[in-house]
């Protein structure tokens, strides 16, 4: 039984983003985003019977979210594999809807990490075999991967910087982006080094923010307010938790999650109009373009170089400005989905990619650990 086009995202919304101010809790942002997403879909809270959430704040997130919102789900899934979790939740929600275990699923997330501390809130435990060496979590893990990619394939700091510049160019077109001022390759390279070869502008933002997405059956989706974004394909994979256990630091498990999603969708990378990749660090975009088949392994640096993933370039990547320039509230996966849905609906204003009917969303979690790919399509793609 294929999940292809069995379910669709029918409502999406962000909470307030950026810096929401003292006193607000992550649950407050989830409440705000959920209210907006229900309005977006034309659904009532009472319609929701499936609940999906992950959190670095709440040990039992679907319980906390369900209690706060007054939702009593008959299907509850708090899968946590880091920032990719929400793309996984979409996959799992579609599976549950397909199997008849729920009809309207809410995927929700919130974080107040910027207002609370200005630092990444992470529940990650240290591996005893890594802790003595004091890697900075998670940036040092990504820096190790970047060092290896540079060694094997000649990828340069300039090419990594171009990822950040492309994200910034998209962010300039998005009024909700947290940083929208000019950025050059030199600015990135000259910025404060954090964990070489990654400097502070190779790293994602630390912002507040949250989101909500509503998923229902394709049949019910057609009766709702907005054009459905159908889930055509999904795949997930993970091979390690800790960076010292990653088999090959230049190839992530996206090399498996991507083909799984393509196979279900009966589509390939060449079909995608918009590509949303989890860019916690500049190296991510390079690795995922390779692992998801947009270019050959090792060719990610040249692929992005020369404004090829900037507005007006060859491939529309991270059109909201990404985790690098739009927002990154600790876990970012849900915001990837929201942007993809809006691109499919044609709601993206200045940054709208013309004739978008297919969008690939790729979530990453941990330290290049969990990889989840989803392919969304408009009515025309069915």
């Amino acid at each position, binding site marked *: 039984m294929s999940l292809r086009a069995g379910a669709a995202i029918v409502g999406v919304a962000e909470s307030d983003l950026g810096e929401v101010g003292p006193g607000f809790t992550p649950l407050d942002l989830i409440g705000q985003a959920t209210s907006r997403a229900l309005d977006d879909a034309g659904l009532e809270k009472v319609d929701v019977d499936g609940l999906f959430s992950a959190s670095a704040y709440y040990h039992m997130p679907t319980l906390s979210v369900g209690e706060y919102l007054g939702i009593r789900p008959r299907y509850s899934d708090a899968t946590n594999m880091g920032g990719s979790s929400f793309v996984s939740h979409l996959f799992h929600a579609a599976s549950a809807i397909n199997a008849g275990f729920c009809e309207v699923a809410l995927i929700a997330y919130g974080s107040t990490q910027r207002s609370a501390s200005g630092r990444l809130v992470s529940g990650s435990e240290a591996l005893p075999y*890594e802790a003595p060496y004091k890697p900075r979590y998670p940036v*040092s893990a990504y820096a*190790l991967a970047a060092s290896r990619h540079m*060694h094997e394939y000649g990828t340069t700091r300039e090419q990594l910087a171009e990822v950040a510049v492309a994200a910034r160019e998209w962010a300039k077109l998005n009024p909700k982006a947290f940083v929208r001022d000019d950025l050059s390759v030199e600015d990135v390279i000259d910025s404060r080094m*954090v*964990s070489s070869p990654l400097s502070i502008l190779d790293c994602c933002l630390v912002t507040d923010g949250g989101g909500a997405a509503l998923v229902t059956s394709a049949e019910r989706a057609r009766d709702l307010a907005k054009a459905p974004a159908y889930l055509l394909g999904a795949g997930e994979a993970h091979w390690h938790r800790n960076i*010292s256990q990653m088999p090959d630091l230049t190839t992530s498990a996206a090399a498996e999650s991507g083909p799984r999603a393509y196979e279900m969708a009966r589509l390939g990378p060449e079909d995608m109009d918009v590509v949303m990749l989890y860019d916690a660090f500049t190296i991510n975009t390079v690795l995922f373009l390779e692992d998801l088949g947009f270019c050959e392994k090792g060719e990610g640096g040249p692929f992005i170089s020369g404004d090829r993933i900037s507005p007006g370039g060859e491939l529309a990547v991270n059109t909201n400005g990404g985790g690098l320039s739009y927002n990154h509230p600790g876990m970012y996966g849900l915001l990837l989905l929201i942007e993809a849905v809006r691109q499919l609906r044609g709601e993206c204003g200045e940054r709208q990619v013309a004739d978008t009917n297919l969008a690939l969303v790729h979530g990453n979690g941990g330290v290049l650990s969990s990889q989840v790919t989803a392919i969304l399509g408009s009515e025309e793609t069915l």
Partner: protein
Amino acid sequence: MAEDVAAVGAPAEVYRSYLKKGKLGFQRCRGCRSAIFYPRMLCPVCGSASFAWEESGGGGTVYATTAVYHRDREPHNVALVDLEEGFRMMSRIEGVPVEEVEVGMEVAFAVREEDGEPAAVFVPVAKTGEG
């Protein structure tokens, strides 16, 4: 003689006991002969529960490296080292400025005591000038 994995104690404790003697211990799977690190109770390659502890010769190559920067002190190195026996571990390369640690550099195991605990580190192997 090969030792039974459970009989010799908790994997983390056996590893530590090797370090306390100045040695780098790792497990060798009796099923598939893979070198296993970090130590466990089941082979992540073949699923066998039968291991032997072995002592590494300590020779390795830097697989990946980063220098972690601080606002108030000098940067420190974090590296992944591939040991000649076929396992990889996180460690630190000492005896060379952090930005001079390179992928592919040949290194050798040494033990340091930190906060009362032994830790495995690596130092560059001096070039002999031959070959």
